[in-house]
């Protein structure tokens, strides 16, 4: 509202900034706790990275040398403190399984996962919101029942199964004209394409993994959206809009839907961990070179620095997503004020 004074704290710091700072400070011990817990859990698991090389041609001395080079010959608490010190200075260490600095490994993979996660979020909320609203408008009709059944089915299906079914569907040619890539993030000729061609290429590769990752969550969002919509369309202001003689389409889309979907923003924080967790499996199925696959391979290879840094990054992303959801909710609903 123009001219309205913004809420300020005792020293003139805007309330939103103070809120953000407080949340960031709260996140620090939480993230450190997460990292420490991961360190302990990883090291509690038996074996170490050299177990990957179960080969009598490789002499024990070479494996010992590798262990020493990885710092695994030191006591656990020394390893932890050393890792923590390096970590706090931004040194994520060296990936045993990738033979590269963890920072470089993550820098390659993180944008790919963010792209897939972002696209899936769009699918989750747009498709989920639209379907839920549609079901609410057609409550108890046959289409509502069919969609409810379909949503429950999708919600119950594991992501990898859905992914494999999509691959088989496309690869079998059962759907004429549906000739989408089923693995990787780019074509083998990607570097020969023009700028628009490259974007189209990545977009084409994004379609199936996005659907596989986002569809189950979309089914969940649809259930929420349906409930919210049903509540809203019974409100007085919707009745008033109808009484004014507005077309039903305008009543639903402009008056009811907008208000019904606002609470869904709060789901963003809930679905981010689900998406990142799902990415581990979906990235393996679709050969998507992202963080999920790194985590999967890193855990099997006992690549401690990589798994710890990747888990930490997932933690940061989830917390940041949750914070973003809170902020968006505040923006969307003026009644909410961060103090």
């Amino acid at each position, binding site marked *: 509202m123009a001219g309205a004074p913004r809420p300020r704290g005792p020293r003139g710091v805007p309330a939103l900034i103070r809120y953000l700072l407080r949340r960031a400070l709260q996140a620090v011990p939480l993230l450190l706790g997460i990292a420490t817990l991961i360190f302990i859990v990883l090291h509690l*698991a*038996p*074996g*170490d*990275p050299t*177990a*990957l*090389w*179960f*080969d*009598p*041609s*490789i*002499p*024990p001395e*070479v*494996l010992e*040398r*590798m262990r020493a*080079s990885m710092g695994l010959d030191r006591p656990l608490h020394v390893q932890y403190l050393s890792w923590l010190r390096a970590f706090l200075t931004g040194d994520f260490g*060296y990936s045993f399984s*990738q*033979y*590269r*600095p963890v920072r*470089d*490994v993550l820098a*390659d*993979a993180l944008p790919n996962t963010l792209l897939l996660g972002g696209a899936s979020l769009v699918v989750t909320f747009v498709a989920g919101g639209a379907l839920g609203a549609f079901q609410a408008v057609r409550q108890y009709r046959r289409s509502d029942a069919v969609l409810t059944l379909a949503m429950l089915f999708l919600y119950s299906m594991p992501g990898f199964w859905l992914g*494999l079914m999509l*691959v*088989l569907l*496309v*690869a079998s040619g059962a759907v004429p004209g549906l*000739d989408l*890539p*089923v*693995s*990787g*993030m*780019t*074509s*083998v*000729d*990607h*570097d*020969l*394409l023009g700028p628009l061609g490259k974007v189209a*290429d990545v977009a*084409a590769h994004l379609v199936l993994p996005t659907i596989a990752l986002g569809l189950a969550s979309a089914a969940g969002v649809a259930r929420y959206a349906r409930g919210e919509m049903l509540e809203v369309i019974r409100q007085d202001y919707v009745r008033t809009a109808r009484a004014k003689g507005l077309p039903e389409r305008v009543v639903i889309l402009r008056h009811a839907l907008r208000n019904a979907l606002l609470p869904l923003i709060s789901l963003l924080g809930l679905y981010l961990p689900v998406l990142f967790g799902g990415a581990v499996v979906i990235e*393996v*199925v*679709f*050969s998507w*070179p992202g963080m999920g*696959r*790194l985590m999967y391979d890193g855990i*099997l*290879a*006992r690549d401690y620095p990589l798994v710890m840094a990747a888990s930490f990054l997932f933690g940061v992303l989830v917390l940041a997503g949750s914070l973003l959801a809170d902020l968006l909710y505040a923006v969307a609903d003026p009644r909410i004020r961060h103090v």
Partner: protein
Amino acid sequence: MNAPSSTSPRRPLPSARRRPGSLRRSAAPPALLAALLLAAAGCDAGRDAGDEAPPPTSWGRGGDGAAAEARPRVPEEERYGGTVVVAGPGDLLTMNPLIVADRPSLEHQIHLLHITLVAEGPGAEPLPRLAESWSFDARGDRVTFRLRDDVRWHDGHPVTARDVAFTWERAIDPAVPFANPAYFDAWEAAEVLDEHTIRFTVRPRAHLLYGWMRTAILPEHILGDVPPEELERHPFGTTEPVGAGPFRFLRRVPGDRWVFEANPDFPEALGGRPYVDRYVYRQIPDGAVAEAELKRGRVHLLLDVTPDAAARLAADTAVAVAGFAAPEYAFIAWNTRRPPLTDPAVRRALTLAIDREGIREVVRGPYGRVLAGPVGRWHPAFDSTLAPLPFAPDSARTLLAAAGWTDSDGDGIRDRDGRSFQFDLLHTPRDDWAQVAAIAQANLRDVGVEVSTRVREQAALVPLVTGPDRRFDAFLVGWVRDVMLDDRDMFACDRPTSPFQFTGWCRPELDALLDSLQLVVGPDVQARLVARYGRMVAEAQPYTFLYDVESVLARRRELRGVRPDARAAILGAAEWWLEPRARGDRAESRR
């Protein structure tokens, strides 16, 4: 979109391109000379490996056969161009030849990006490569290599004797985690005589030159200033590799692909420029997705195909499936420190009771054969006269009863002195191991032995079996072996703490034999020793040998010239070519 084939420069074709698996005529005399010299010096070059070599690969299995090879012949000058896409379940870890890596990485180092001093012949005999000739002095303790002068690193520097000396110095440096120090344990000193001549002082050793077949040469001008302990972490292995082989490194997308392009400057005498313009290796972890990509023509060659997938793919007329001998076998290891597995008669009974032929049929189908001893068909000294123990449950029952194990309480499980005959069988979580374990469990139950199967992730299983207290009864595993065949860590009495001495079984006379195997250089004597070694192990049964493995490849039929064998799945990749219709559009994965 431009097809890669249309943008690459064309060079005049080599007038006499070599046939796969052999060298050009011009290289033959030095090869022959070197072989004779080595034979005179008691070394392994020149061995007639014809009857011991792994059989030439047949593309006939799985419905391929003559149809594929009976296609119209494509003239040589029309074979150039296109991008070949190869896919495997794992990423290539490193292109640094001195860093511990998996087999696919090693194969791409040796056969694609880098060059080795000598090439590996079909019977593991050395053939000229970077070294166009070599000779031993009269006493056999010095070997002099004459290098080709037309091989260049992909950055334009010539490959010289200093690079060879540098590679050797780093390989034997204790600060470098080189996986196979045994390759160079008989190489004592190097002397660079001139830019293209190097002399080594050596001690007698079986397969003396084998290390130079399996270790690519490193560029001293790039890595010379890198401290040995930092070599492992240098980006040379992962993002900035420079080789001197038939393909140049172009690009890597970690976790996704490696892209190589044809090296137009690769010497004609070594085969010249590869036929294909680009070679792309893609990691596709999910087998079903990889199959789908092959069927759609977006992948031309699939590595490490499972027998189940091979059977499915063989039904596709556009795909050819074939197996080839791999240096790998599967076995059950018995902890002979723990009774009743201490008794060789009991271990023999267990082997007799397990239907290894049935296991092979279920797990490998046509891609494996029952194995009798520790040296499989891939090895030049394989003893074909050593027959596996038969599947004979009745004999097993007799042996167990003679050892005092009878079912005294009628519960179906044998017992002795109040103790039931039961034990745990460990294995890693793999479908094929689960099948093997289930069959073995049922077989042993039939003869009154109770087996509990326990699944452990590899990182968890390895400490159990290699740790000092060997906390296991039996475990099921498979591994890849080496032509050099140094099995002392597995069976030597003087290495009881070796991680791989998990069975605890040894014989002093076997120690001497295994030591001799490292020194004896004549192929006939080698074969005799290998035969004795195999019989001693087969007699004692510290392992129940299950089967040796044939690796399986599946390829699109439009990819021609693929001839893998025990040396490498991608052997002779520079000789592969795509039929004209498969170049460009069909080779690309975006439409």
